[in-house]
């Protein structure tokens, strides 16, 4: 039994304010090695991801046309990518016609500059924010702070992360790595106006957040949001949420600034009928989220009377150039892939070192930073290790509401990450070993000769090997080296009895050589 002295006992994991929100940590293997030591984290994540998995399955099973909706969602997104320039111009025209102002940003720095200038023009020193991945991606809060503007996150989980000085670890539930007791400690230690005797009941914690933010909502002059989607033919923009903090931000302030990735545009208003079914069921596992706000430019007398839409590239056009990689841009940020991923469930989101963790992050983050593009990234760059953060089990593909084939994109990006165009990488043990393997497999003759070496090697290593000296120890530290077969498959194939000859079937099954023999040999071990 410990005594609480009112001191925050929760350490930031990891500290906020990274130089680059897309690449703040070490390589994935190193970061995962660290996070895997944290039993509390794994327990928190396991409970949370399993809860949401079951909810999602229950509500998607309810719709007899769920697979048809997924197919339509995927089709719309393919259409969006193919016609993106026209859609963006149409969106700009629609928003402008309804009294909004559209801005374009090539990269994070430009987007931050545009937003900061808009806040200054409104003569504001504080802003309220709706949870937004795009503004996380560009590090907007840190940039505003440097400009003397205080940005308050109003989504409960974002508020927890902000008060703890943390980084988010999940797309939908950024504080998923925290349990209720940790959150109580964060509020007590950092909120300032946390009520005395605050318990760790979720309802009490939510009430404390409501009280904390109410005055800020009412006095804020400027709100900053992201967008779940924007409709090109009408200029309608949407924010999908649960708590009502989004409605507060989108309704009360005089000025609204929305930062949106260019890939979020949808062709027509009718497409809402697809995405407003796919998104809520896939993300929170509800039939519908409590609140969605749709607005079109400025409505006189209702809501913000000044609306700015910032269209953000920041690496998206690089991903768009890759026919396989561009599917990462279909993502609607539901986070279903995170919740079903066996790797994410164990390592947690921080191991990915990016605001986009999990399977989608493993294909999106590297592309936003240049993997696959001319010049590319160094293969040893932390972001270039992300496509390897997967067992390729395919659960993410099955869960994705817009059917992004994440495993195929991962394999494609592994190749791109290791062989950047126009860049020579420093050789490693892996690259030399795989280079030799590639050399031997490139020609049948060479492969035959390489195969002939196997029986020779068997004389040196007649049994299963559990431990090899360095550098072989890098392999045997996590796996055994199996016993080498007596003969190669080619030799066995040439020597096998003629098909139809007596005993042929038996010989096949006994597998005197080839791969069949390996298992039997392995079992000879004492």
């Amino acid at each position, binding site marked *: 039994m410990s005594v609480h002295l009112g001191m925050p006992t929760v350490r930031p994991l990891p500290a906020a304010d990274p130089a680059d929100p897309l690449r703040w940590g070490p390589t994935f293997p190193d970061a995962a090695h660290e996070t895997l030591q944290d039993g509390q984290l794994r327990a*928190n994540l396991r409970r949370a991801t399993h809860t*949401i998995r079951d909810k999602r399955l229950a509500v998607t099973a309810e719709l007899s*046309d769920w697979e048809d909706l997924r197919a*339509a969602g995927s*089709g719309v997104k393919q*259409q969006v990518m193919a016609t993106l*320039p026209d859609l*963006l111009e149409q969106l700009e025209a629609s928003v402008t016609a*309804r009294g909004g102002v559209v801005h*374009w*940003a*090539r990269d994070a720095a*430009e987007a931050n500059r545009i937003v900061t200038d808009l806040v200054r023009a409104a003569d504001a020193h504080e802003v309220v924010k709706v949870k937004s991945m795009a503004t996380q991606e560009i590090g907007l809060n840190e940039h505003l702070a440097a400009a003397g503007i205080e940005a308050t996150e*109003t*989504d*409960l989980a974002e508020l927890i992360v902000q008060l703890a000085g943390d980084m988010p670890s999940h797309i939908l539930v950024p504080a998923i790595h925290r349990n*209720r007791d940790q959150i109580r400690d964060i509020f007590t230690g950092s909120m300032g106006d946390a009520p005395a005797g605050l318990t760790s009941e*979720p*309802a009490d*914690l*939510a009430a404390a957040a*409501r009280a904390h933010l*109410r005055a800020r909502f*009412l006095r804020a002059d400027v709100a900053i949001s992201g967008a779940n989607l924007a*409709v090109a033919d*009408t200029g*309608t923009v949407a924010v999908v949420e649960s*708590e*009502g*903090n989004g*409605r*507060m931000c989108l*309704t*009360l302030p005089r000025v609204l600034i929305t930062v949106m990735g260019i890939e979020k545009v949808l062709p027509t*208003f*009718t497409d*809402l*009928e*697809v995405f407003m*079914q796919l998104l809520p069921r896939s993300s*929170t596992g*509800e*039939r*519908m989220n*409590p*609140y*969605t*706000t*749709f*607005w*079109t430019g400025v*409505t*006189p*007398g*209702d809501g913000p009377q000044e609306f700015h839409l910032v269209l953000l*590239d920041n690496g998206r*056009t*690089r991903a*768009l*150039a890759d026919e396989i990689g561009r599917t990462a841009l279909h993502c609607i940020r539901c986070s279903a892939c995170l919740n079903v991923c066996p790797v994410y469930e164990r390592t947690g989101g921080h191991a990915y070192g990016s605001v986009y963790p999990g399977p989608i992050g493993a294909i999106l983050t590297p592309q936003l930073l240049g993997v696959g593009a001319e010049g590319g990234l160094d293969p040893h760059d932390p972001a270039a290790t992300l496509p390897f953060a997967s067992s390729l089990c395919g659960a993410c593909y099955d869960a994705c509401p817009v059917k992004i084939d994440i495993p195929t994109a991962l394999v494609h990006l592994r190749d791109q990450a290791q062989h950047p165009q126009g860049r020579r990488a420093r050789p490693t043990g892996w690259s030399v070993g795989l280079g030799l393997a590639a050399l031997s497999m490139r020609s049948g003759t060479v492969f035959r000769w390489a195969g002939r070496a196997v029986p020779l090697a068997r004389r040196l290593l007649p049994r299963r090997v559990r431990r090899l000296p360095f550098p072989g120890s890098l392999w045997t530290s996590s796996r055994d080296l199996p016993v080498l077969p007596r003969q190669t498959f080619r030799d066995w194939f040439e020597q096998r009895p003629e098909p139809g000859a007596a005993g042929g079937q038996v010989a096949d099954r006994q597998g005197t050589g080839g791969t069949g023999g390996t298992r039997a040999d392995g079992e000879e071990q004492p």
Partner: protein
Amino acid sequence: MSARTEVLARVRRALAPAPGRSAAPVPTVPRDYRRHGDVATGSSEAVELLVDRLVDYRATVVRTSTAGLAAAVAAQLEGVPRVVVPPGLDPAWVAAAREAVGEVLVDGVAPVGDPTGDATGDATGDPMAVPGASVAPLSHAALDATAAVVTACRVAVAETGTIVLDGEGDQGRRVLTLLPDRHVCVVRADQVVGSVPEAVALLATHPERPMTWISGPSATSDIELVRVEGVHGPRDLRVLVVED
């Protein structure tokens, strides 16, 4: 080069076909999903489904008739010191509210004597205001100090338990249904459609209107993914379903 020109040029370059290849055709979208729900608009099955969903979200649902509606509105406002209504609300409901509550504010119309003292207009004008009414939208502070709001709705979706407001005169500005902690919303059975596509088709007639889709009281699942009702939006959603 402006950012606009450059971003659009990058997009076009990214999509340009490889040399010697022609552009791929724009894919067609397979739309084999249901365009209509399994229950008919306004049917008792649709109402049953809607009620089931709303109860699941822990909204309070009262089923009533046209004749009983005024009394039902009054009953849901019992104990509320002050209520606000949009300027175009059915006068019979407003009268019922006046019976039950000491003070009824009509948005867009300066209340007699201006009891809050701060119901000042923001000078932008309110197109929803009833003809002849003085244009004086209530201030945020006044609305924050108001316990309840009564509105109608534009459409409701049975399958998802969703009520859509689109700012018509009987629903009012978005802020009306945001700051008061209790939202009493009247849904007529003939407004209940089966599925999301049917609602979107209806809303597409006025896509420019600000819309709020409401599915239960405000909630969060941000702490251990445990759903908690009641964060920033109205914590108390009361739906009056009118079946006749």
